[in-house]
């Protein structure tokens, strides 16, 4: 019996052989089969530019976006005044830092307890004492404005998509592309429409953070149990009542997880928006990194990490908080005890800040700094490990990175396409083969083949190293539940850091070159691999492991024949995320010097070339989407075969 899979392998084998022939016979191939020929390359960038020109000037979209951005700007001014005293209406700011720290403390206490209170209060105290208050508040003021906008837009579009399956069908591919476009691709059109500065930063942040909110809203609304809806209907709810009082409140957890994701996306984007003139922590970090001031950038890095962890924990605590009953007969004062304490603490804070200016605002010269000691310590460490890093750098560059890059660039593009078709065919038959061909064919037609190959090489080597590190760590961690929980917590925390942060230590260790980029990407990409390996292994049904043990399997056999095959679908999800993360990271890392698509994207950004920027962005997105298609297809097939 020849199953379709077996036939698929046969065809895949043929395609693979074709790829091999094309590669081996490169010397006798005509030029047109080695690099995309002139006639194949289409001026996509010009088309996009023409479309944008039309939108901008002839359709009057400009006035619409300007109107929207004016509203955003007004809100930004208000928060800027309140948080760091920019002289705008209502002219009452800045709020003393002690009051904001107390508020954060109380929010943490109310949502989770003392530990979260200490974390969130402590974060703001650290920011103030280190003299970074103004930058942090610049960053925060954008989040405070952008996040509610995104949440509202996401909720609205999520509800619309839920109401109309047709809208959902249109929206879904757009969301897929939007979530695989690198950050920079969003910035260029915004710069064209809005210009640079905080306003543009806020708007790009809003646009960037909407997709997860739409997804989570849709997911939550679909997950509401049928019986709850029927109960609502039998209670005589109208459609509007059903939506606002039954469906949305029941989907609360998913929607709040969406809010959490919006906040985290906002933070990641705000930090990166420094490239388009967004002041704040990101800009400071960018300047410091560019001038290689390691100690000061570590300080900023710590602040960003603390802020990320605090925002994540606070919003997650809010999302996961289960309702609990209070004493029914309690007095108003007793029921709103925390509110009263908060208000009185804030009042005390205001008064104290009037008396002690230090509690109102920490002057630059009063600020603490640990940059000096960090620099000294780093110098010591670097001097100590310099031989190792230098050797590693030399080894990686001469023996791994450069040969690999040359090999990728040497390959005829037809061989690459045939190889991808072979992989596609092996995984999902003709349909997948065609999808792979279409995505990479478009990249070939964009005229950026060589740059794209460099990106592919960076991503593939990084993911490979990440897997080599991540898989053993994951397997080791999954052996023991407490260890698994601890490592998962670390992974969770690491995933909340904005990607920018990962560049600080690698620049510190390796300087500015390809090795630093690869190292940053490896760390960033290893996290999802570790995480999903642990989750996959821990979720293998215990009966199966017991059955294997009772059949006399030793630990290695159990792992190899039972646990890993069962965990494979979950681990593949990790691999998928890992590829996505490394694509994003490679592009971001471009500013420390790579020759891939990212570098071109930076150039497009500085010359505000929308067409070029979007073509490059789509090229990256297509790589991501192709990987996503292949891995999800494979994972789904495995899941079906395992019946899980």
């Amino acid at each position, binding site marked *: 019996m020849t199953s379709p899979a077996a036939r698929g392998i046969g065809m895949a084998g043929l395609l693979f052989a074709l790829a091999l022939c094309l590669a081996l016979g490169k010397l006798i191939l005509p030029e047109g089969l080695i690099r995309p020929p002139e006639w194949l390359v289409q001026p996509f960038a010009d088309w996009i530019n023409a479309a944008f020109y039309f939108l901008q000037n002839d359709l009057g979209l400009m006035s619409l976006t300007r109107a929207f951005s004016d509203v955003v700007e007004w809100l930004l001014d208000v928060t800027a005044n309140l948080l760091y005293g920019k002289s705008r209406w209502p002219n009452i700011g800045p709020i003393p830092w002690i009051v904001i720290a107390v508020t954060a403390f109380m929010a943490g206490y109310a949502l989770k307890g003392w530990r979260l209170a200490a974390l969130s209060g402590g974060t703001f105290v650290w920011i103030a004492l280190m003299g970074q208050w103004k930058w942090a508040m610049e960053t925060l003021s954008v989040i405070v404005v952008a996040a509610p906008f995104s949440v509202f837009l996401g909720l609205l579009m999520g509800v619309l998509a839920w109401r109309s399956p047709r809208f959902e069908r249109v929206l879904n591919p757009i969301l897929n592309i939007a979530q695989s476009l690198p950050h920079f691709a969003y910035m260029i059109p915004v710069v064209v429409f809005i210009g640079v500065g905080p306003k543009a930063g806020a708007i790009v942040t809003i646009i960037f953070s909407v997709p997860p909110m739409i997804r989570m809203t849709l997911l939550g609304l679909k997950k509401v149990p049928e*019986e709850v809806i029927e109960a609502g209907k039998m209670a005589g709810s109208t459609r509007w009542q059903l939506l606002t*009082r039954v469906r949305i409140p029941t989907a609360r957890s998913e929607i709040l997880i969406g809010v959490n994701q919006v906040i985290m996306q906002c933070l990641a984007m705000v930090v990166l928006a420094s490239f388009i003139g967004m002041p704040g922590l990101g800009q400071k970090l960018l300047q410091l990194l560019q001038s290689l001031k390691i100690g000061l950038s570590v300080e900023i890095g710590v602040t960003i990490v603390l802020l990320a962890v605090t925002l994540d924990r606070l919003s997650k605590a809010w999302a996961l908080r289960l309702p609990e009953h209070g004493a029914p007969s309690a007095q108003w004062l007793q029921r709103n005890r925390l509110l009263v304490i908060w208000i009185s603490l804030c009042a005390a804070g205001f008064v104290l800040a009037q008396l002690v200016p230090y509690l109102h605002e920490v002057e630059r010269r009063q600020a603490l700094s640990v940059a000096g000691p960090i620099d000294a310590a780093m110098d010591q460490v670097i001097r100590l490990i310099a031989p190792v890093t230098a050797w590693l750098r030399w080894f990686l560059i001469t023996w791994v990175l450069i040969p690999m890059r040359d090999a990728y660039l040497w390959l005829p593009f037809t061989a690459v396409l045939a190889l991808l078709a072979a992989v596609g065919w092996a995984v999902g038959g003709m349909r997948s083969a065609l999808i792979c061909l279409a995505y990479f064919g478009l990249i070939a037609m964009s005229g950026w083949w060589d740059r794209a190959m460099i990106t592919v090489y960076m991503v593939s080597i990084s993911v490979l190293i990440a897997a080599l590190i991540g898989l053993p760590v994951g397997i080791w961690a999954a052996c023991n539940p407490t260890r698994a929980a601890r490592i998962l917590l670390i992974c969770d925390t690491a995933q909340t850091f904005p990607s920018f942060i990962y560049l600080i230590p690698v620049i510190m260790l390796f300087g500015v070159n390809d090795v630093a980029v690869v190292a940053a990407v490896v760390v960033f990409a290893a996290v999802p691999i570790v995480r999903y390996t642990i989750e996959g292994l821990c979720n293998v049904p215990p009966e199966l492991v017991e059955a294997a043990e009772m059949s006399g399997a030793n630990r290695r056999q159990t792992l190899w024949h039972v646990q890993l095959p069962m965990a494979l679908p979950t681990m593949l999800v990790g691999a998928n995320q890992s590829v996505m993360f490394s694509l994003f990271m490679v592009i971001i890392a471009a500013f420390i010097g790579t020759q891939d698509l990212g570098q071109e994207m930076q150039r497009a950004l500085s010359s505000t070339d929308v067409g070029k920027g979007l073509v490059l962005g789509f090229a990256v997105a297509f790589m991501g989407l192709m990987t996503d298609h292949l891995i999800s297809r494979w994972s789904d097939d495995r899941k079906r075969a395992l019946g899980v």
Partner: protein
Amino acid sequence: MSETVISCLGVSKIFGPDPVAHLARLKADPQTSSVGYVQAVRDVDLDIQRGEMLVVMGLSGSGKSTLVRCLSRLIDITGGTVTIEGQDIATLSESALIDLRRRKMGMVFQSFGLLPHRTVLDNVAFPLEMRGQDRSTRYARAREMLELVGLKGREAYFPRELSGGQQQRVGIARSLAIEPDIWFLDEPFSALDPLIRREMQDEFLRLKGLLNKTIIFITHDFDEALRLADRIAIMKDGRIEQCDTPDQIVLHPATEYIAKFTAEIDRARVVRAGSLARQLSGAAEGEAVAATRTIRDLARLLVADRREVIPIADTEGKIIGGMNRQEALDVLLGEAT
């Protein structure tokens, strides 16, 4: 007979791409292939009287839950008519349907269907809130309902803080908050542990005695059906195989399928003296027994008594007939009748 509250005529529900056309095809030729379609309810005729308690019994997939959703128009039927108090509910506009539910219907669900973000009190007050009643009235009524189901003191709890049995009590209180005339219960006790289920059945019988409602009760548990029902409708593959009183179903199963169900049942617990009553040929001798007592209740008497025929009396004490003692002993000993 009293007045009919719900009446079904040829009700069918088909799930699939084009159900109406498929139903027409089936009507023309019953042999039509149903690949791609599910006939959840087929051609059901049913009349439910005011104040009656009808139990719809069937195994999972027999269409019982679909049928009860057709009666409340939670799903639209494919063919036939459902009439509630003389009104064809398929013709109701959305607002009229909402109004009907707000005034007349209550429903209890298998997995409770409670709103997780609302307190117990707010859950029970929910239907009243939908009707637009003001806060204090609806809370007063909700408190009353919670007291009725024995959950006083738990008003401020959230559903997840309660046990399954308590959650279902909340579900029951909610469904009764608007004082419905028609009460639907969709496998209300199936998700509960056997001990709790028994307790909830007793509770249910107590409530049923307090309130005079038309009740449609769904279950897959034959014992539960026998325990609670005035009449039982047994469903299989979307059809009603038999709809009759528990006694009649046990004594005279209409089909093989029902006979298989009843085979394991201790008939003496189900059959009541009244259903064995025959026309008396002469005058009744000796003391009469009540028609509502089960044969099991009468076991001692049946064994000790020497009379050939034992007179049966209805609730007012009037003699309605006589029971052949030998026949009753056969039921008691589980021998074929």
